[in-house]
């Protein structure tokens, strides 16, 4: 079976997640059609400090709230959103 082409996904970190990751953005290379969940796992492997924040964190895929099972495509932008406090 042919190896599927990997995809590149940009991850943006905000607020406490930015501090925990130690960066505002980075890119991950993943197998084609990986899920949001797979990306979260990869990110938490790279930044152990993120693991403790996971409960209340939400994820946006191309600026819309995403589910863990949503599939990623090449060039997608995924943002890690800790609990929000506007106003």
């Amino acid at each position, binding site marked *: 079976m042919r190896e599927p082409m990997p995809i590149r996904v940009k991850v*943006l970190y*905000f*607020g*406490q997640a930015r501090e925990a990751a130690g960066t505002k953005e980075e890119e991950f290379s993943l197998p084609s059609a990986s899920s*949001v*969940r797979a990306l*979260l*796992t990869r990110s*938490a492997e790279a930044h152990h400090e*993120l693991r403790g924040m*996971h*409960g*209340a*964190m*939400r*994820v*946006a895929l191309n*600026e819309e*709230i*995403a*589910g*863990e*099972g*949503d599939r990623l495509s090449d060039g997608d932008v995924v*943002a890690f*959103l*800790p*609990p*929000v*406090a*506007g*106003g």
Partner: protein
Amino acid sequence: MPARREARLTRDVIDPSEVLRSVANPGSGAVVLFLGTVRDNSKAGSVERIEYEAYEPMAEKRLAEAEREVKRRWPTISGVKIVHRVGGLAVGDVSVAVAVSSPHRAEAFEACRHAIETIKRDVPIWKREKLGDGSEVWVEGVPVGSGARADSRRRAKKGARPASP
């Protein structure tokens, strides 16, 4: 009326009279203006400054959506305008302004209240307080989209529960 393309996030000082002008309408008998301001104290202690951070393109979309939702729920409303500030603010600075104009006062109060509550739970904005003792703390927030409306819309659209890693 075509949707205005002007930004709802700003790094500049918010001028309430400008916000009021943007909802002015000769058919309106009521205008309600809400201003959120930086308080000098919080659960964490005395506050000197607050740094606001936003996921700007998404926050712009959600603020515009909050305005549209108010117009859908209160169709008699003549104007609604939201402006939210980002960057470093001092005590007393205006962090957010919501203005609503309508023929009568009741729906203007209700819609304005609804809009600010939506902003607090639906828009990707974070704030970090600089305290009097020199320390800094992130203000405890709520999971984005935790309101009932956002949840039902998301389920209807995606058929998926929100990602919580």
